[in-house]
């Protein structure tokens, strides 16, 4: 048990470290000069040199790296090149929105995808099954920005059912604020979920079909247990595990890949922050954002692993 957890934690730390290192060296080894973007046009070589010194870019690469790691370990994410504000402030202003969007996308995919997959497996060959199979193959083919735009124009602009972008109405308080929050969350959430729920339901269906053909299921039925118990208590518990792992792996895509959705819906997440920081060559913010994203994915993966373990204590890989 302990070694299992230890292995998972080791892997988590390794992932974060790799994310940090990859970002760090990519930024410094690829040809791009952040000083050029801070002052355009009239910049003397002296000004450029002093800027490079201020950004810490004048030191040898390995020293920069060491300094940065030391900084990270002490919890300091550094100061933004462009905004001069602490990176932590900048990222924390956006992180809750990313967590909200990704977290709810995760939950909704689970809550809707699981019953869909189960029903498709149980009612194999019937209409439900055909629909889930069709949807499972097509949903991945949808180009998210196109879907997002369609939703925004039709449901947001034409039918005025949902707000046009933004995260929340700032003039609301209390219950109204919660409602506004979810009202603004709906369309971005729907865009993200629509694209990934298909394959998820499909995987679950496949796994359920396999499990339902197992001997112990047949013996459970023979023992007189109701269909519902057999399916939902016994079969699902085993079928869900690979699907859960799949979701955990999708988290990386979900958390960072929402940049297109965030742009169109003006949703202030970390994905969009990364895009803007790349344009501005704001290294500290970029590094910080990747660290935070990797951290989030790793923590979420650990959580799903824990849940998997709770569901089936026999798991030891």
């Amino acid at each position: 048990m302990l070694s299992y957890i230890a292995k998972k934690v080791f892997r988590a730390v390794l992932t974060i470290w790799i994310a940090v290192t990859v970002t760090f060296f990519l930024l410094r080894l690829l040809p791009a000069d952040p000083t050029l973007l801070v002052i355009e046009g009239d910049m003397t070589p002296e000004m450029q040199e002093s800027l490079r010194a201020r950004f810490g870019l004048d030191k040898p690469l390995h020293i920069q790296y060491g300094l940065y790691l030391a900084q990270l370990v002490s919890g300091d994410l550094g100061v933004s090149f462009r905004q001069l504000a602490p990176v932590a402030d900048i990222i924390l202003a956006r992180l809750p929105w990313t967590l909200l969007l990704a977290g709810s996308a995760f939950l909704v995919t689970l809550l809707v995808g699981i019953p869909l997959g189960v029903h498709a497996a149980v009612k194999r060959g019937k209409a439900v099954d055909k629909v889930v199979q069709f949807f499972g193959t097509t949903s991945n083919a949808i180009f998210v920005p196109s879907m997002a735009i369609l939703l925004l124009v039709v449901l947001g602009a034409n039918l005025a059912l949902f707000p046009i972008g933004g995260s929340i109405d700032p003039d609301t308080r209390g219950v109204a604020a919660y409602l506004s929050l979810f009202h603004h969350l709906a369309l971005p959430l729907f865009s993200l979920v629509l694209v990934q729920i298909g394959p998820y339901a499909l995987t679950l269906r496949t796994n359920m079909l396999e499990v339902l053909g197992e001997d112990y299921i047949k013996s459970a039925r023979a023992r007189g247990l109701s269909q519902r118990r057999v399916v939902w208590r016994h079969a699902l518990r085993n079928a869900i595990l690979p699907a859960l792992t799949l979701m955990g792996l999708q988290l990386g895509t979900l958390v960072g890949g929402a940049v297109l959705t965030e742009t169109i819906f003006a949703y202030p997440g970390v994905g969009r922050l990364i895009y803007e920081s790349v344009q501005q060559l704001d290294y500290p913010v970029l590094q910080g954002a990747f660290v935070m994203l990797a951290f989030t994915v790793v923590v979420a993966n650990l959580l799903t692993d824990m849940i998997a373990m709770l569901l089936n204590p026999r798991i030891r890989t």
Partner: protein
Amino acid sequence: MTLATVTTRRRRNRQSFMSTPGGWLSISVLVLMVLTATLGPVIVPNPSGLGTDILQPPSAAHWFGTDDLGQDIFGQVVWGAQISMAVGVAASAIAIVIGTAMGLLGAYVKWLAPVVTTLTDVMLSLPMLPLMILVTALAGPSVTTLIVVIGVLSWAEVARLIRSHALVVASMPYIDGARVLGAGPIRIMLRELLPAVTPLIVVSVLLTAARAVISEAGLSFLGMGDPSSWSWGRILLNAQRSGVIATAWWQTLFPSLAILVLVLAATIAGIRYNDSRDPRTKGV
């Protein structure tokens, strides 16, 4: 296994693949797409210059309408097929080669297994699109950059798949037999394991290429694509920049449909191929 049974089995597989509408429809669509990408630019003129019909909806003269420069969108989609598909196929090739190598190594070479699995899991945990954005922006957007970036960041899923199936094959007795007979690890991986996972590779090629097309469209839409060549993502980018997404619906619809159709065809072909080899679901 005699030659006769092998060939009849193959013929049976091909039959059952093509016998379902999913099978032959998806293959025909893929063939059509490839034809469009290769022959289209020869027949359809390169969209360029300034036209006179600006932002026209689809009509007999312009099947997909025109954009804000008066250029024919149908021409743009046809020319875009070339780059979008080229990137998809090339990136997929890179991902497949790396992924298969990693998968086989991770399955057969015992001391490498933990390294490979850790590496694969880490790769899958990294945020893909932000990394692609980062590298493309820093290296300068071009078709080459896109292919390399998408390819190098897509091998992990392939590796995972290949490895899990190669593991099953690697534990079979005839592999031990081959080892006893003196075959080295490379020979065993190439001669025994690789053929056994080839059907999986075929499926992976299709699915990875489909995903790569979507990644390319996404990157182009963000302005990270190659500005000197047409791609489906770039048509969408033009619509976005011109502020006409809500009004000129045709400029967004047709490239999106192209992406949808291509990815759908590839996915269904992959699934049908898989099913046609699985005795349990053959013909379902």
